[in-house]
């Protein structure tokens, strides 16, 4: 790997290191919040769950918050049904030395609904918001709303003080940055002049007088029809009573992300594409003042020892063995070459933990516990 290709990965920004690497056990013992991030398809959710189990077995009261677990993993954690599992679910049989392990799936829509109900004093008013068309679509599918509600829920769970450690699993790559930026973005949005004008006390669209806001609504009306404008105005206005609280909580979570006992753990794989996405992400999180503490590299193919001779074998079962050995070794070496970039990013500041490609997909607690043990053992340097 040349200096040039390293700077392509944006590594300059990461130097000099701000901390020295801690073992993974130390990170899990000392953090109050661990956030996993990384590209898609690298086993992020599985790793988050295994980190939680590892910490629970070290005596901590752990809650793992996941976004979109694969079905069988969700089953193993007992959080299959989104509706029923709004509250954290305690997983029995995990946790030693006084530790415990719970899991919860983040349900943005339910969180939003509850926030409206709890923070609105008048039931008729909250019913009106909940049936608002703009609200329904925002709560259900708006990309940003998912992140805002993650913040809201994280705040609730963190301030409940029921857990020593929260492990938060984020959606893939660029979205992970979205999630980490969500508190700041929400604060900005709630302070936006258009938003403020919309939530002032005018009774209807016709009386919105702020020029920028009129233009905004004019565009919405031109693009999507007048009915949507009324709904939009009503929706923003209905938020008026609860926005101060949202803003407050978003600021608190923004501060929480930057606390020194908050650790980011990057999960990646040795594919070139995943490595470059990880480099991009590492840069972005460090730039934002967050502490990236460890890199877990999953799905590494085993490197068989070199094979001397046997070049002349061209047929029969042995030829299959020799060919397969050559291909596997080629792939495994190529992966190790790509991983140099990840160890360079880590430098002296982060622990790098290399987990071999597993023979089976992980979907029960024994397998997760097994990975938890490996993480701690391999992350002890």
């Amino acid at each position, binding site marked *: 790997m040349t200096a040039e290709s390293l700077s392509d990965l944006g590594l300059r920004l990461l130097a000099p290191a701000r901390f020295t690497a801690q073992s993974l056990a130390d990170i899990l013992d000392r953090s109050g919040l661990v956030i996993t991030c990384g*590209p898609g398809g690298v086993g992020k959710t599985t790793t988050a769950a295994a980190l939680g189990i590892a910490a629970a077995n070290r005596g901590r009261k752990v809650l793992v918050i996941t976004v979109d677990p694969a079905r069988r993993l969700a089953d193993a954690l007992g959080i299959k049904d989104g509706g029923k599992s709004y509250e954290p679910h305690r997983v029995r049989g995990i946790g030693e030395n006084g530790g415990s392990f719970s899991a919860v799936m983040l349900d943005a829509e339910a969180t939003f609904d509850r926030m409206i109900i709890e923070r609105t004093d008048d039931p008729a008013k909250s019913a009106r918001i909940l049936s608002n068309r*703009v609200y329904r679509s925002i709560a259900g599918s708006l990309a940003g709303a998912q992140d805002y509600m993650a913040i809201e829920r994280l705040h609730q769970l963190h301030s409940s003080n029921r857990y020593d450690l929260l492990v938060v699993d984020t959606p893939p790559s660029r979205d992970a940055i979205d999630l980490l930026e969500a508190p700041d973005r929400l604060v900005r949005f709630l302070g936006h002049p258009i938003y403020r004008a919309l939530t002032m006390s005018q009774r209807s669209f016709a009386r919105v007088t702020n020029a920028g806001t009129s*233009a905004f609504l004019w565009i919405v009306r*031109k693009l999507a*029809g007048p009915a949507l404008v009324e709904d939009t105005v009503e929706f923003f206005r209905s938020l008026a009573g609860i926005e101060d609280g949202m803003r407050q909580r978003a600021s608190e979570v923004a501060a929480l992300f930057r606390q020194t006992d908050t650790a980011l753990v990057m999960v990646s794989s040795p594919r070139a594409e995943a490595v470059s996405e990880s480099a991009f992400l590492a840069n972005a999180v460090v730039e934002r003042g967050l502490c990236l503490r460890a890199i877990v590299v999953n799905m590494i193919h085993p490197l*068989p020892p070199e094979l001397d001779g046997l070049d002349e074998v061209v047929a029969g*079962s042995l030829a299959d063995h020799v060919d397969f050995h050559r291909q596997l070794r080629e*792939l495994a070496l190529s992966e190790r070459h790509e991983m140099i970039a990840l160890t360079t990013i880590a430098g002296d500041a982060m622990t790098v933990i290399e987990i071999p490609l597993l023979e089976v997909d992980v979907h029960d607690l024994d397998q997760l516990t097994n990975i938890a043990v490996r993480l701690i053992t391999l992350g002890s340097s």
Partner: protein
Amino acid sequence: MGLYALGVNEAWMTRARVLVVAGKGGVGSSTVAAALSLAMARRGADVLLISVDGRPGLGPLLGGEPLDDRDQLLKKVGRKGRIRGRTIPPRQAFADYLDMKGIGGVLRRTAAAASLDTIAASTPGLEHLLVLGKIKELVREGAADVIVVDTPPAGHAAAFLRSATALQEIVSSGPVRTQADEVAAMLGDRTQCQATLVTLPEETPVSEVIELAYDIEHHVGITLTPLIVNGCWPERSGLAVSPRIAARDADIKLTASQLRALDVSARFGRSRQRLTATQLERLARELPLPIITLPRLTTARVGPLELAELADALVDERSSMAS
């Protein structure tokens, strides 16, 4: 395995004007989109590859510069075939759209301008719809024989394709509604548009692709092409025999270190072959789609050579499995 049957006729690739390629993160759907573009160009097609999420690296992979929002010639193939590439940033699609609807100039320079991004970002599916709308325009202009669309990764492929029908539910009039109607019609028309799903022969990716297939077929009504299973280790029946016995059969005496090396690869190879066979059988059982398998590359970094290898495999009848 050994389920190889009649080759899937490769004409499926160019059957519609738009070929949407989708898969969860990490399964290699962008690479497959590039390989499909190459395979089509080899058949003489004029291909436009669009990376919705803006993966600039697809440009160099096909022999050109990194992709940006301008149309760029990446590669000429044979006498007629060529591949061009570009991205469609949602922000640009939105600006184009506003221009088209006559919302420009003064209004765009008011305080509302700053909010336009907010409108686009905070209306569910609007950004996706605008990108699809732009693709629809490109189809209408006859921009290429086939437009290959590399969809956003992770869980967003379904959201991307469902954006039109989702917006039809909340917007009842105005240009956004018209746009949603037209895009939904394009996606549902098999002569206009089809979708290729990509997965890996592993349990979770297989479960997810089955879910994705039913989801988009049901909600979007899009026609699905053969399914592409990426990263399949080639079948090697010899691995079933232990290296020691294989050597004895070949009258070769292995040294201890040779035996150790082959034992490590054989153990891994057998378990991967079992997993691959199980998952391919599961796909054949649970999804009524023909399957095309692509070989596992022996490098962690896909370059032009590997891409050519994948494009070969896409049209190789040995890659096809009966459904």
